[in-house]
């Protein structure tokens, strides 16, 4: 069994962990160059998934706490786009994702994957003024879903900002410090 498969399985275990144990199911162990999760609408290649993983990691980098890639936010983005977005959004997302590297080459002289972290940040900053509609929409959707996935992740809700199911509290005159 090669290392990639082992890593993949570790990732899947973690994925099940973040998704609550029942939700995202692996389509395969990446023998076919396809994505890690089963998708109904999007057709995503392995390298596109890898690119997306680097992108969410750039948006939410790991520091002394986990970042986007470790929290599998790229898979969350794919899941949400696949299930919760319109066909038009999905088309723009796929086109934008495909154009993303070309755009990076044009602007930064290199593929996004090959850029150093600081250059990646510069590139994302420059996307605020991007004119390419698909890239703009792809990036907008990805960023919004990454933020949502992060703030609603088990890790953040357990370790960083505790979500209290019970007992709830209510104080209408909570004094700010």
């Amino acid at each position, binding site marked *: 069994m090669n290392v990639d498969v082992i890593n993949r399985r570790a990732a899947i275990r973690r994925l099940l962990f*973040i*998704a*609550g*144990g029942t*939700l*995202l199911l692996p389509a395969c162990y990446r023998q076919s160059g396809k994505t890690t999760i089963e998708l109904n609408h999007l057709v995503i290649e392995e390298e596109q998934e890898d690119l997306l993983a680097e992108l969410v990691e*750039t*948006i*939410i*980098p790991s*520091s002394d*706490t986990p*970042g986007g890639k470790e929290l599998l936010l790229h898979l969350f983005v794919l*899941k*949400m786009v696949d*299930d*919760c*977005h*319109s066909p038009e959004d999905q088309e723009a997302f796929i086109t934008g994702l495909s154009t993303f590297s070309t755009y990076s080459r044009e602007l930064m002289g290199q593929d996004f994957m090959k850029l150093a972290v600081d250059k990646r*940040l510069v590139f*994302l*900053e420059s996307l605020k003024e991007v004119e390419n509609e698909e890239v703009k929409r792809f990036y907008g959707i990805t*960023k919004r879903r990454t*933020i*949502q*996935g*992060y*703030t*609603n*992740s*088990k890790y*953040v*809700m357990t370790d*960083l*900002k505790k*979500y209290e*199911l*019970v*007992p*709830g*509290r*209510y*104080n*209408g*005159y*909570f*004094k*700010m410090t």
Partner: protein
Amino acid sequence: MANLNIDSVKTRTFDAIVIGSGASGGWAAKEFTEKGLKTLVLERGRDVVHVKDYPTTNLYPYELEHRNEITYADKQANPIANRCYAYREDTKHFFVKDEEHPYIQEKDFDWIRGYQVGGKSLLWARQTQRWSAYDFEGPARDGFAIDWPIRYQDIDPWYSYVERFVGIAGNKDGLYTLPDGDFLPGYPLNAVEDYFRQSVHKNFKGRHVISARCAHLSEPQPIHIQQGRVKCQNRVLCQRGCPFGGYFSSNASTIPWAQKTGNLTLRPHSVVHSILYDQESGKANGVKVIDTESLEEIDFFANVIFVNASALNTNLILLNSKSDRFPEGLGNDNGLMGKYIAFHNYTARISAEYDGLLEYRTDGRNPAGGGYIPNFRNVDRQETDFLRGWAATFGAGRSPIRDTDGVGDGLKKELLHDSKWSNWRVHSHMMGETIPKEENRVWLDTGKTDKWGIPLLHIDVDYAEDDWLRRKDYYQQMTSMFEAAGFTNIRTQDDGRRPGNDIHEMGGVRMGHDPKTSLLNKWNQLHLCKNVYVTDGACMTSTATQNPTLTYMALTARAVDHAVKSLKSGEL
């Protein structure tokens, strides 16, 4: 008919039949079974057992596949259900999907339904206000619809009776337009809601902001503990079903209570086709049911029948209960059944900001939702160009300010901080009375049926001119009240809500004194078929501004009391 042998008839015969297991049907079941009557409750949907059948109740946000969002495919398939504020990933299994139960919209009408044991009592907003004398006297005083055959004092003791069992959190506010009840401690207003209360009190005579009254156990009493319910935990995830029984639902309260008596037979998967009328006795003697699993047609028999199928379905069942004596529907000699459908006008919202009291924020969650502004319009005298009035919610809150413009470490910090908070944002929505009109009506299609062969319902209900005048008044009055409190950035908003989406559909089988102009008498009996009672929203003669469920429950308890006494005295 399925089977006519005598033993089978015996097993299909009860003292009472209740159609529907929502808030009012659950109350009918509780009252009948407590009084010793063998009672059959028919529910068209599946069973939902308290706690056991609440699959999402203890899920954390990250355990919901789409983080509580509805999928695109679901939105496309169920535009009606999706327009309900409470339709989410964690609750959608309790809502009727559009294609499962079609109806015919003559005009846009969102019919929001919950077909299961407990009905919409699992899903309701739990706001519980008594009607006042002003409300019951409304039609007679202002000359619309017809006079209610009851007055506030007729229902007052039944409100208390129901409130004690249900558990209503509220304060004694001493208001004529919103009588006090038998309350558990109310949930306090937050800093800005309380500030607005004082400002309104000071600047506007006769207007009040109070803590919203709601069916939550703020301090459970022995009667609630006996039901197996405990204190509300402020989760505010109510529509998932509450494992604590912290809010009232049939599932947590009346149904298990009725089951404990040993007198209840609960039959899910039982769509009522019609009520059977016996020409000889001049009474109804049972109901025809279609078992949705076996598709078998089965008749059940009883001395008294309560129709609590939810307002429009109650209309449907009665209209479909045709006999030689009643070719236009049971008790419908005057042809008024299905007419005078009314609802609440929820189309208006207003929001603003407040930059005072920034030393405070709300911590945690308030199950009551915040404040309530009882109607103050046209109370002592007619003062506007529309009849009757409106009530409103009022809430205030703050949220962390997060600049999500950047990426990287800076963004990460922004998403986690707890230090920068917005100004207070205040918001309100209108709950307007609507005037019942004959042209707002429902009727049965003559050809199209559902999958059980029951005619589809046409719904022809719309707003009227006075609804827009009322809304204009709401915008104006709320704006001046907001301005007086120093709120800024005031914005009014038509939320485009369709009739029905208030989920307070009422009428069609209205109560009244006179069999010529009404269907039900003052005890909720059909004038022309006295052992059939209607005590859900269909019985309503007018709508008032209050959330109606508490009134349905009180009317039900009162009607069961009457039915049992009448059975004993031989009148029924």
